[in-house]
């Protein structure tokens, strides 16, 4: 173990953890705020290769390796870089496997193990970066490019992703398994790494990439539709603003009406009750039972309550009517006094052919007699003919009245 390398690695990681605050802020903002951190700290971070200054008067930035580490571990979707350079990785793998084979051939086992370790590292890195790229693409699809606001930007992002996918697919085609198989020969370790390992990830990645491509195409279709709709709406507003008189031709007037405008109106109305259906009876009864009777006085009836002037002339007319009857009764009384005959009220009514109801006449005669002074009453003899009520005692039914002088 290289003690020196180990030591400096540990001190680098310690520095990272000590200044994690500065580094994370630089990662999120993009550059380091040099006033916030001490100059010593910045100096040491620059020496360790964590920060760098791209131009003399530019701000301090994170080195891309540190950024990549953070993006990879945090699965941050802001990372939209996809490393599609597979040719150089493949060339390195081929070269290393040749080193390994040569070392084995010369029986330099220790050296060969070193080469094998390197080779493993490269193959794993290649498969990891492939899987990572696919994951990145998927995460972008899953939130529908949510990191950009406008649909136009989404369309551009989608186009970028599509070009990256096709680039990745082109690069993957560079892996020729027949060549790799030949290179591995009958060496078990090499065969496992170059053929089995790579082939597995190859099939997995191509399958996923084709899914990604399909989803991307579907998404761009949707985005384009969104854009089309928005433009349609905005265009309509613009058009009607510029031509306020605009109204579309009446398409329903032509001989063939587009099916879009043949929408028929509703024609169903609620059905009526059939009271003769026996099976509906309980339901209807229930409904009737729940009808509420409202006792409120309708607004229109209120005029009955309003004060109204009383027509006195009408009352006078009734009095005239009344006085005719009274005069007739007076005449009847006078007749009895003049002649001294006894005559019943009904007989007088018939004889004089008076146009009064018999019952009213009798009442008026009785009333007339009652209204006389007690002194005057003494001159007359009044006798009612009638009978007791057959059912109710104490009631007397008067049929006629006979009037005479005492």
């Amino acid at each position, binding site marked *: 173990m290289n003690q020196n390398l180990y030591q400096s690695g540990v001190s680098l990681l310690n520095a990272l953890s000590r200044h994690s605050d500065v580094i994370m802020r630089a990662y999120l903002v993009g550059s380091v705020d040099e006033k916030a951190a001490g100059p010593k700290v910045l100096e040491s971070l620059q020496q360790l290769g964590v920060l760098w200054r791209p131009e003399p008067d530019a701000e301090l930035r994170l080195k891309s390796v540190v950024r990549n580490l953070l993006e990879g571990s945090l699965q941050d979707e802001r990372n939209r870089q996809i490393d599609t350079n597979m040719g150089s990785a493949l060339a390195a793998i081929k070269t290393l496997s040749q080193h390994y084979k040569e070392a084995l051939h010369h029986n330099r086992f220790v050296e060969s193990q070193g080469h094998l370790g390197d080779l493993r590292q490269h193959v794993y890195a290649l498969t990891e970066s492939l899987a990572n790229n696919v994951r990145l693409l998927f995460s972008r699809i899953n939130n529908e490019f949510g990191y950009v606001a406008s649909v136009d930007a989404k369309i551009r992002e989608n186009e970028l992703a599509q070009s990256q996918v096709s680039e990745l697919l082109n690069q993957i085609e560079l892996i020729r398994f027949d060549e790799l198989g030949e290179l591995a020969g009958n060496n078990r370790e090499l065969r496992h790494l170059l053929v089995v390992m790579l082939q597995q990830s190859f099939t997995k990645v191509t399958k996923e990439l084709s899914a990604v491509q399909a989803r991307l195409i579907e998404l761009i279709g949707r985005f384009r539709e969104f854009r089309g709709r928005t433009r*349609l709406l905005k265009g309509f507003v613009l058009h009607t603003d510029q031509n306020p008189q605009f109204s*579309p031709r009446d398409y*329903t007037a032509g001989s063939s009406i587009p099916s879009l405008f043949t929408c028929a*109106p509703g024609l169903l109305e609620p059905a009526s009750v059939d009271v003769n259906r026996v099976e509906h009876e309980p339901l209807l009864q229930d409904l009737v039972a729940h009808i509420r009777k409202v006792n409120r006085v309708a607004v229109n009836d209120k005029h009955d309550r309003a004060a109204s002037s009383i027509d006195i002339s009408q009352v006078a007319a009734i009095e005239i009517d009344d006085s005719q009857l009274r005069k007739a009764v007076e005449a009847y009384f006078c007749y009895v006094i003049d002649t001294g005959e006894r005559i019943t009220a009904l007989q007088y009514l018939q004889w004089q052919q008076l146009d009064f109801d018999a019952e009213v006449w009798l009442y008026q005669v009785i009333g007339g007699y009652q209204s006389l002074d007690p002194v005057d009453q003494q001159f007359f003899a009044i006798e009612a003919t009638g009978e007791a009520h057959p059912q109710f005692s104490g009631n007397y039914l008067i049929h006629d009245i006979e009037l005479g002088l005492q």
Partner: protein
Amino acid sequence: MMTEQGRVLTQLLSGQFICQITDEASWRFLKNNANRNAIEPHLALLNRALSTTAEGDVFFASYDSINDSERKHLGAQFQEISSNLRPLVDWLLLVQQAQGNDIPIGMGSPIRLTELQSTIEDTPAFTEQLEKLSRYRLFGSASTQTDGQLKQVFKRLHDLGYLAKPNPEKPIYIATGKIDYLYEVLRFIDETESLSLTEQAEAATSQGSLL
């Protein structure tokens, strides 16, 4: 008991637009070819036919043969559609802008009234737009408050079938297929009158970006 077919027929004959949002069961029923064929003769009896919008996701009853009385009704209906276009387009754009994700309202888009209201109240330009569009005869709001205007506009759209309210307790609306029908009408007018609306909009935005 009414069968599924009877239920769907009733909906169609009462002039409803059937889409996945308004009534998923009926929509699924109509998506089936055999069911559609079974329902056609019943409609034909009443001079109706089953129509869909171009993408086949919204169903409605249309006239089968068109004579004078039908033509008269269609003319009146068309007048109504064309006079309602501008208010509806203004409303669609307002909601799209206020929601801030640049995605146009289409079938299935949820609209949260409370969120929309707070965005509109916080942005004077939106408040003004709402004020203007709530005055259209279609919405007929007399309120001076954003709250009242917004509620009236949404109530009218709900009554007209452009929005569905899945839970009557909650102020969340979902756009129905009738909105897609509206887009189709717009597209149709655009094509037949050769207005080239999209090109106009595109030109306007590119000019805007130059300025």
